[in-house]
């Protein structure tokens, strides 16, 4: 039983690095190009124009703060919960775009001119959301309840 503990700690750290690293990378790409990210959000046709501009400025910073919090283990449960929530929103937006046959770039990792496969982006947002929930469940303040 004692031998399992270090393995679990390593596995949790790998998950943390994967989740935090992915969100940090995605955030930096979008922070660099807010106008292009606003265009990507616009292509989903879900929000009014002023809201897409506000979201394009705010969302990448929230992703960056949450990923930093996960990696630094400060406010970790809250950051994981917010990441899971964001993944849920991405999942709904991407699925709705896929159902409406929109030929768009998901904008997940900044703007690219090429359209990316939406099913792959949907699967990725689901996987990252589940990973965030798994880590949330393992947080000391949550698992001790």
């Amino acid at each position, binding site marked *: 039983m004692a031998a399992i503990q270090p393995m679990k700690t390593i596995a949790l750290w790998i998950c943390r690095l994967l989740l935090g690293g992915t969100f940090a990378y995605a955030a930096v790409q979008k922070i660099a190009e807010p106008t292009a990210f606003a265009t990507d959000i616009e292509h989903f046709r879900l929000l009014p124009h002023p809201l897409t501009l506000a979201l394009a400025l705010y969302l990448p910073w929230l992703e960056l703060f949450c990923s930093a919090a996960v990696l630094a283990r400060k406010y970790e449960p809250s950051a994981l919960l*917010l990441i899971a929530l964001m993944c849920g929103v991405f999942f709904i937006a991407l699925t709705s775009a896929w159902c409406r046959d929109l030929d*768009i770039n998901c904008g997940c990792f900044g703007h690219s001119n090429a359209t990316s496969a939406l099913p792959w982006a949907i699967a990725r947002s689901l996987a990252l959301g589940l990973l965030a929930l798994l880590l949330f469940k393992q947080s000391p303040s949550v698992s001790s309840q």
Partner: protein
Amino acid sequence: MTAAPASPTRQILRDSARLLFLALIPAILAGWLHPKHPVWSWSKPGVTEVNLSEITRWSAPLSWIDARSSAAFQKEHVPGAILLNEDQWEQQLPHFLEVWQPNAKIIVYCDSAACDASQAVALRLQRELNLSSIYVLQEGWASWLQSNP
């Protein structure tokens, strides 16, 4: 006497609010100071969309631009259309400039109402080449097919 520690749920909510607020500060600054910050407006800037019946009434010469993928263009396109999409912008733009006539009205189209490539290409042409007589075909290639089966 010391205060009782906050319950974990309250602590999580409080820290979430902290993170949400912290992200707001650089976001506001970015909206103001970022060199590539979006231009604030209440409505989406876009190129005027026109339908086929309106285009048929125009007397000016027309230049059609196909903003779809190369594969879709090779398969079928509006007669005389030029391929120009964002994926291969640098390679395709010289050809457009070669055949472009200043007195022609430019109409850009993509697959259907569900694509934004035509708006993106039209906006880019407007921005980079300062073209004014440029329009987007409503419902794109799908509407062309409907009228020209």
